[in-house]
């Protein structure tokens, strides 16, 4: 009975999606907003990566909403899982794992910070770099399960980074502009120090996402493996 209803529903959904995508002008989208952004972004925002310009400058409020959703999900996940016990009582992993994670930790830190800081020049940005930073802080826990991450420090970093994002956005209010308008000098297109306050915003985003995901991962990896 359930399978029959599911098949009918899926048939209808596939038919609907096919009709809709058949009517789309694939390859020649109208792109009214996209064209306007392409003409204006290099002069207005000063970031070489237009997706960064859209995410932080033109649709900065959506990024703030995304940060709030991530915060709510990580906090609720930590709440449901219960307070973090002290480290797991497994044996430490073998030599390859320990040596590998010791070598990977500084490498991942450098790559993560590079991706975060160059978000306005090359593909990348706060979210991708934040994920790499979270992995950098989580890997030593896999090799030595008896260690823990300090959740107090992680919450402090996460809170400060989120506050910094909102504070930089609110500074634009003092200058009689809208919330989250990019500030500071735009600089030369294509240099590292360019794009006004965009690298600072992405740095705040990267640190916040990294701290949140590292704390969530360490909570998931703590003990009670047989429950």
């Amino acid at each position, binding site marked *: 009975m359930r399978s029959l209803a599911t098949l009918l529903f899926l048939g209808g959904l596939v038919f609907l999606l096919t009709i809709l995508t058949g009517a789309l002008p694939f390859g020649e989208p109208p792109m009214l907003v996209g064209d306007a952004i392409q003409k204006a972004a290099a002069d207005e925002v000063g970031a070489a990566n237009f997706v960064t310009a859209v995410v932080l400058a033109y649709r900065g409020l959506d990024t703030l909403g995304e940060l709030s959703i991530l915060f709510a999900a990580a906090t609720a996940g930590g709440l449901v899982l219960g307070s973090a016990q002290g480290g797991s009582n497994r044996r430490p992993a073998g030599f390859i794992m320990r040596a590998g994670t010791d070598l990977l930790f500084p490498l991942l830190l450098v790559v993560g910070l590079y991706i975060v800081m160059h978000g306005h020049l090359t593909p990348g940005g706060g979210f991708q770099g934040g994920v790499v930073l979270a*992995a950098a802080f989580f890997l030593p826990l896999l090799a030595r399960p008896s260690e823990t991450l300090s959740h107090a420090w992680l919450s402090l970093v996460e809170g400060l980074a989120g506050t910094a994002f909102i504070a930089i956005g609110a500074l634009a209010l003092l200058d009689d502009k809208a919330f989250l308008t990019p500030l500071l000098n735009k600089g030369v297109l294509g240099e590292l120090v360019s794009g006004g306050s965009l690298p600072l915003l992405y740095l705040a985003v990267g640190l916040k996402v990294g701290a949140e995901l590292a704390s969530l991962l360490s909570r998931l990896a703590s003990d009670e493996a047989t429950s």
Partner: protein
Amino acid sequence: MIWIALTVVALTLGAALLVLLLDNLLAAVAAASVVSLGVSVMFVILQAPDVAMTEAAVGAGLSSLILALALRRLGLIRLAVGGDAGNDDA
């Protein structure tokens, strides 16, 4: 070019079917990360490098890590050879 697109789409759809049909849940998690990888390659072909990097890092990296950690916490890891989950040594 058409053969590359055909191969990537066939790989992705095959892995998606395997996620639903495999019995071993750890293998299903691996198939889900293959789906993320295929979608990431499709994003590169569609000239969207930012989204491809995000999908690769988050889908094939972080999501698979969270799923595998949850499997270990639920006690559902079952290797193909031998009995229980031996995950103490490297």
